[in-house]
């Protein structure tokens, strides 16, 4: 479903990603692992349009054909484009209106490593903001509270309750997001992402800061998302237990390069991976 090829990302002199390539199969759980600073979050940022890759390709296959996730961020204009008005118009359009939100509308939705909720809004409002495709935006129909507006709003609230219940947050709908305990905030962020109805859900360290019981519940939830809701999941995780348990496919990143891919078992036995991880633990011990 997602194909990443030759992806490079440079920050000044630092090569954060160096020709990264991998695939995410539809209906799978793919884990992206690697030591700290390996570039995992950077990969997510490129896929979801927050960073504009220095070079490479990211393509998402969907029902309506392939979408180029880099072009929608707005590419630089070249002199040659002047001869192709169609292409030029496209580029200018994306330069003016392009950005990360288009990646989301294409079906790639993410959560963040450091939880990003709308803290001064209630949990339910957080979920309503996410349902921009479902609600009626026109100011006038909201002002007069037209039938359509109310129906759309009610449907959105209904959906919101569904996902709150799914993530075990049924009691917290009207509480301020910023006041929830950390574990709940993490789940609320996932619920909010699900409200966008993603095809590819990218979770950045969903288990960070959770206790073992919460982690176990989380792995059950992720599996349900895939099996019952048909979402393809791509996750970054340091908890190897969780990775081994739920992922179908693992991509290992180190110093911005893919050093291994395969099933959890294959990767676990790869000497390069062991070296990367043992190297790290060796340093930590020193």
């Amino acid at each position, binding site marked *: 479903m997602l194909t990443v090829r030759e992806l490079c990302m440079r920050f000044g002199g630092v090569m954060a990603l160096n020709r990264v390539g991998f695939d995410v199969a539809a209906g799978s759980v793919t884990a992206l692992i690697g030591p700290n600073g390996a570039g995992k979050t950077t990969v997510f940022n490129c896929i979801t349009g*927050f960073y504009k890759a220095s070079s490479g390709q990211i393509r998402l296959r969907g029902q309506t054909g392939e979408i180029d996730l880099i072009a929608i961020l707005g590419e630089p204009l070249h002199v040659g484009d002047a001869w192709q008005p169609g292409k030029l118009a496209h580029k200018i359009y994306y330069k003016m209106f392009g950005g990360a939100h288009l990646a989301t509308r294409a079906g790639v939705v993410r959560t*963040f490593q450091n939880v*990003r909720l709308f*803290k001064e809004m209630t949990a339910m409002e957080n979920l*309503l903001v996410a349902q921009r495709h479902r609600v009626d935006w026109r*100011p006038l129909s*909201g*002002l007069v509270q037209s039938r359509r507006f109310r129906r759309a709003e009610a449907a959105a609230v209904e959906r919101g309750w569904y996902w709150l219940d799914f993530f075990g947050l049924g009691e917290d709908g*009207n509480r301020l997001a910023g006041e929830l305990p950390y574990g709940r905030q993490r789940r609320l962020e996932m619920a909010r992402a699900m409200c*966008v109805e993603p095809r590819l859900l990218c979770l950045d360290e969903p288990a960070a800061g959770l206790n073992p019981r919460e982690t176990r519940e989380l792995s059950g939830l992720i599996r349900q998302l895939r099996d019952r809701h048909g979402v393809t999941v791509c996750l970054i995780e340091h908890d190897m237990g969780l990775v081994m348990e739920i992922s179908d496919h693992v991509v290992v990143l180190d110093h911005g390069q893919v050093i291994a891919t395969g099933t959890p078992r294959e990767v676990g036995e790869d000497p390069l991976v062991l070296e990367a991880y043992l190297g790290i633990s060796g340093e930590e011990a020193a």
Partner: protein
Amino acid sequence: MSEAKETLLTGLVALLLFAPLTGVSLEGYGLNSHWQNPFLLAGMAMIGRLLLGRLRGLRLPAGLAEYDWQTRLQRPILAVVVIAALIFPWLVGKYWLNVATLALIYVLLALGLNIVVGLAGLLDLGFVAFYAVGAYFYALGFKYLDLSFWIALPGGALLAGVCGMLLGFPVLRMHGDYLAIVTLGFGEIVRLVLNNWIDFTNGPNGVRAPFPSFFGLDFSRHPMPGKSSFHQFFNLPYSSIHKEIFLFFLLFIVVCGMVYFVRRLRRMPLGRAWEALREDEIACRALGINHVTVKLSAFGIGAMTGGIGGAFFAASQGFVNPTSFTFMESAHILAIVVLGGMGSTAGVIGAAVILTVLPEALRDFAEYRGLLFGCAMVMMMIWRPRGLLRSRRALFRREQRAC
């Protein structure tokens, strides 16, 4: 560091800061001495420092903070305000009626800026520019095109909105602070152009703006031949206060509409998106919200409100010139929004009324206005950045389902 030591240090720093600027004042090329001032001020700084240390732990009494002011008292307060507004114009003279009209204009402006700053979290320091656009659109439109108020009102709002959009579009995609400085610059550009383009705007001398008509009836004692004026049509004795009362009520209706609009907005997708953008722009983008257009809508609606306020200002003064549109005016409106508690409608209305009426009631206040606004802004930000009362969120109930 011990409290005493820190207090002494504060006093010393304050003394050094205040000594040259308040201890002496420039008189020609010489100096006048006021040696006691720095010591007084330093003393005040020390006391302030001590109090601050004491107050830091203090919270509003729990009962007061928890008490749900807004739901319990909403309807009675609303009723009282509306009734007061309905009888007020008949009781007072022209002077206070004018003050009240001005207060309503500020309420309108502050509600507009509140959308931009309080809801969408965008700092607009050149709000007065849109105000000026509205006012001058009416005055110049009348001068050159003979536009009536009823055309200039929507026209000025539209023009201000378009200006806001054109200015905002390139800037809103960038780091938030740039918007602040660009709007600051824009406010100054507009004022300078109004001041310097003498052929068109008549420069510092200003332009006349006529009084709006009452659906085609004007308010003059002796109307043009063939037309009838308000007092003749309704068979009233002529009184010059009619037109002021009319303008007051007109403005009151507009403000009520605006209040309703803002209140509804917060339960509408657009308003929620604004607040979400204020809370976390990156998360918004990750949810598929186009941050530029959503911010632009807030900025544009704010600008339109400014334009409407401007047209009313021109109509109520009968005259506009560039001195009404300085940065101090922007700061005044921003201070209202900040003191009203950024985002709270009731707070903003209260602050607008108080800050407009106070300088009229206390002449001395005007002298210290800027200083007090500044202090208030700093203290509000440090003490209560989200306002005195936490704004109430919309509550959602579950649909009753038969299980």
